[in-house]
């Protein structure tokens, strides 16, 4: 019995402490709420995103805050799970009574979280979701920051078309975001008159692509596009080399856009294209400065998730400044009207809150470095084409 | 022609390549106490497993009161009125003694509880009603297991070495119960390898060896039968038969 009492009292004390800390909070500051994936499958990206948020909060407060008030960030770990995300946004809105909301990472968690925001009629800047489906539900309060998944591969496909490539092999993971990328590739390829000659989904757990690659070898596609994350794109390239799969272009979502892609593959990464929401080298005001500061603080180059985190903050900042308050209706109106360029790129949404201002950037690993190749005006390097055959490396 | 309640014909059971039962016949007279003796490995327990439905891999025929029960599931055989105990006691360890008994009563038997209490009182175990099965001594467990099968008022009870590991006092109680119930008309089939244990009780004894019935008859006739000499080569068994 005493053990039980001990547990119970521990519980009571903790709850009390938590309630107290909320009550004592400074009422003269604006509170920004967000759920972040700190554990679960998106933990890696979630962590970077959180760093982005925090840097923005620090910077704003160093500038003296917004409308003369300091910003404070309240964040929780959603464990990369939709149902936890939904609960957390309920908590942020009704219990922590935050003034502003930033969305979670991943399309799946955003689907659940945006419903909560919609219910409370609370505008939310989504900083980590890109599936167009989110904006096809008629919600009025979800504002996208990322380039849509559906147009991710457009610049690379256009580039391929211009170089005379005709056939595409398409592979993608069977979850929301990669499927959106794949859907976009199909549409764009058809529009360009290219042919999707191989189209296969794979499961999350799948890290063995040998069979898939052997099938592809028999078809000999001009280019291979993957709707993927980091581990699967890495595994695919490694096995492509082992099985001597050749195509003139290899392009993957997410993976090649991250520094770990090169770390894990070494020289085999060279020539692989990918896409990115953002790169430190982008010719956007503030991007270089941000990445320098970020690197000084956290010891590594920021990926686009960090940039997105910072950018989401800037969008909120601009909206509040424009609305001259944190009143939900005014902020929402301001978000619809905004057309600004943040550190993360242009922000402009359509009537559903879907991002339409930000272009898709393509990167390529060239000599062990991640270079922006498309669009031309942002490029740091010319595309290296075609992919160098394995036997000649 | 005697009235046979349990008739076993040509029961054969093969494990892998080994024939554990090679066509066993058994005729149990209603209201009798029948003994089955034989050395270890002679197939006694296998026979019980087959009759009670625990082992449904045998061929042949087992008729209980004129009804074929070979291949029927044990719960059905039990509900037909044939109950058994196990060689090693199998009370339900985390059930109380009372629950152990009640679970064995017929499903809609409203008098189960009072009947169970009555049985426990008769063997002077009433103080143990709420004790968990696992907390009983081994002898007590055997007794509870025996009482358990009485809950459904079976017409035939198979006892698998009921006296093994039981102290003399409890054993006497057990035999008294058997005699009492037999007097009321219950048929018993008892496995033993110690002839003495059942010699007073049994009207008829079967001798099983290597899966075959090699002798049957009254206790005395079996003991003097040459066949049984043949199988009682092993020391201990010989002593017992000679007694």
């Amino acid at each position: 019995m005493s053990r039980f009492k001990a547990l119970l009292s521990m519980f009571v004390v903790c709850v009390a402490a938590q309630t107290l800390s909320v009550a004592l909070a400074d009422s003269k500051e604006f509170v920004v709420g967000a759920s972040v994936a700190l554990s679960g499958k998106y933990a890696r990206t979630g962590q970077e995103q959180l760093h982005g948020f925090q840097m923005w909060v620090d910077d704003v407060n160093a500038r003296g805050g917004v409308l003369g008030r300091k910003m404070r960030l309240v964040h929780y770990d959603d464990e990369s799970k939709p149902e936890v995300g939904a609960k957390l946004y309920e908590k942020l809105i009704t219990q922590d009574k935050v003034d502003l909301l930033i969305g979670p990472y991943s399309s799946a968690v955003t689907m659940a979280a945006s419903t909560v925001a919609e219910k409370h009629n609370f505008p939310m800047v989504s900083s980590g979701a890109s599936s167009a489906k989110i904006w096809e539900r008629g919600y009025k309060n979800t504002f996208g920051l990322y380039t849509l998944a559906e147009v991710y591969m457009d610049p690379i496909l256009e580039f391929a078309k211009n170089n005379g490539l005709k056939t595409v092999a398409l592979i993608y993971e069977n979850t929301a975001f990669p499927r959106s990328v794949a859907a976009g590739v199909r549409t764009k390829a058809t529009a360009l008159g290219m042919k999707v000659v191989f189209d296969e989904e794979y499961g999350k757990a799948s890290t063995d692509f040998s069979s898939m690659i052997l099938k592809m070898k028999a078809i000999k596609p001009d280019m291979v596009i993957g709707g993927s994350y980091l581990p699967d794109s890495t595994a695919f390239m490694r096995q492509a080399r082992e099985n001597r799969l050749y195509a003139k272009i290899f392009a993957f979502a997410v993976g090649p856009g991250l520094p770990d892609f090169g770390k894990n593959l070494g020289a085999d990464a060279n020539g692989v294209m990918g896409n990115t929401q953002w790169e430190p080298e982008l010719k956007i005001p503030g991007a270089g400065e941000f990445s320098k500061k970020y690197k000084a603080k956290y010891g590594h180059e920021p990926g686009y998730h960090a940039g997105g985190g910072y950018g989401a903050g800037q969008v909120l900042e601009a909206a509040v400044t424009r609305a001259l308050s944190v009143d939900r209706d005014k902020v929402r109106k301001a978000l619809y009207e905004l057309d600004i360029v943040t550190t993360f790129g242009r922000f402009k949404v359509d009537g559903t809150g879907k991002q339409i201002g930000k272009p898709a950037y393509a990167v390529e690993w060239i000599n062990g470095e991640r270079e922006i190749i498309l669009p031309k005006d942002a490029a740091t390097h010319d595309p290296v084409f075609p992919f160098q055959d394995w036997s000649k490396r | 022609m005697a009235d046979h309640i349990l008739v076993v014909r040509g029961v054969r059971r093969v494990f892998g390549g080994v024939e554990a039962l090679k066509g066993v016949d058994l005729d149990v007279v209603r209201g009798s106490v029948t003994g089955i003796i034989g050395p270890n490995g002679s197939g006694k327990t296998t026979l019980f497993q087959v009759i009670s439905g625990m082992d449904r891999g045998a061929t042949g025929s087992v008729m209980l009161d004129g009804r074929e029960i070979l291949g029927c599931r044990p719960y059905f055989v039990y509900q037909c009125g044939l109950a058994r105990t196990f060689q090693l006691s199998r009370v339900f360890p985390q059930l109380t003694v009372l629950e152990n008994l009640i679970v064995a009563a017929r499903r809609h038997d409203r008098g189960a509880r009072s009947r169970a209490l009555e049985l426990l009182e008769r063997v002077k175990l009433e103080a143990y009603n709420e004790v968990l099965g696992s907390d009983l001594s081994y002898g007590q467990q055997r007794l509870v297991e025996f009482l358990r099968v009485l809950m459904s008022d079976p017409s035939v009870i198979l006892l698998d070495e009921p006296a093994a590991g039981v102290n003399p006092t409890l054993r006497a109680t057990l035999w008294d119960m058997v005699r009492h119930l037999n007097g009321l008309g219950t048929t018993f089939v008892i496995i033993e390898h110690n002839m003495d244990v059942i010699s007073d009780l049994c009207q008829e004894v079967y001798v099983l060896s290597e899966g075959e019935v090699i002798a049957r008859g009254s206790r005395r006739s079996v003991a003097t039968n040459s066949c049984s000499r043949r199988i009682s080569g092993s020391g201990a068994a010989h002593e017992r038969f000679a007694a």
Partner: protein
Amino acid sequence: MLSKHASLASAAVLVVILAVAPAVLGEYYLSFLTQLLMMVALAQAWNTISGMTGYVSFGHATFFGMGSYAAALLLPLGVPWWACLIAGALVALALSVPLGFLTLRLRGPYFAIAMLGLNEVARVFVTLWVDLTGGGSGITLSPELLPSLTTSYYTMFLIAVAATVIVAAIYHSRFGLELRAIREDEGAAEMVGVNTTRDKLAAFVLSALIPGAAGAVLVMYTSYIDPAAAFAPAVNIQMIVMVMFGGSGTVWGPVLGAGLVMGLREVFWAEFPAAHLMLLGVLLLSVVLFLPGGLMALFTRRKLVRPEVAAGPQERPDG
């Protein structure tokens, strides 16, 4: 055991508190309680099959996921939410009968892993049937179709109460006694007239109904479902952990376990965001090692009634 009066009184108090909760609590706590009640319901469901019969299922999320999908598919067709709920339960029920026949022949680890395998098969099946389920993209429900949080809360509350009442009714019935006999020694139970196949299947079906209904409510609460969330192995484990925390095979154990684990999670997670799951692991280990009967064992002081041992009363973990 808890005395009958104490048990009923605490049940009554708990029910009253939970019934008036929406009037007092903010939406977050309501949201939290909805998930807590869901875990109570799931834990009780698991308790019905595994706690009572000892058939440890590692795959009850199968029914949970099927219920979710049934609701998510029917809701957009204009079916009222309560009918979707019933449909979720019925789908789980329809599925549980053949699955029960298939798996309940197996014992011990075979059954546990077979259920885990079925959960995976169900997940892959739903993922591959893209035309119906949208595959890995999942299904999004528009908010105007969804019942309010308060409605979800009360529905979950009713399911949790129903689940607990079912467990209580079974526990005190002849059926429950038979199930416990099966848990102790299936062969012996069969040999004293227990139709083990029928009993196990009945328990299995009952234990599938509840997750089916709970899954339907969850999807109405999150508005989004995909195969990974619907058939998450973590859900399987959570049910088990909560029951073990509270006390397996008891009526109140799962309630206590779900309440405590969810509560502690909430606290840990606020206080130690990085390490809260690790702390949960430590807690789990401690309960398994030092309190095998679960927390209910703390309340249970079985009087030593073994007459010949005249020692003082001692605690006994009660499975």
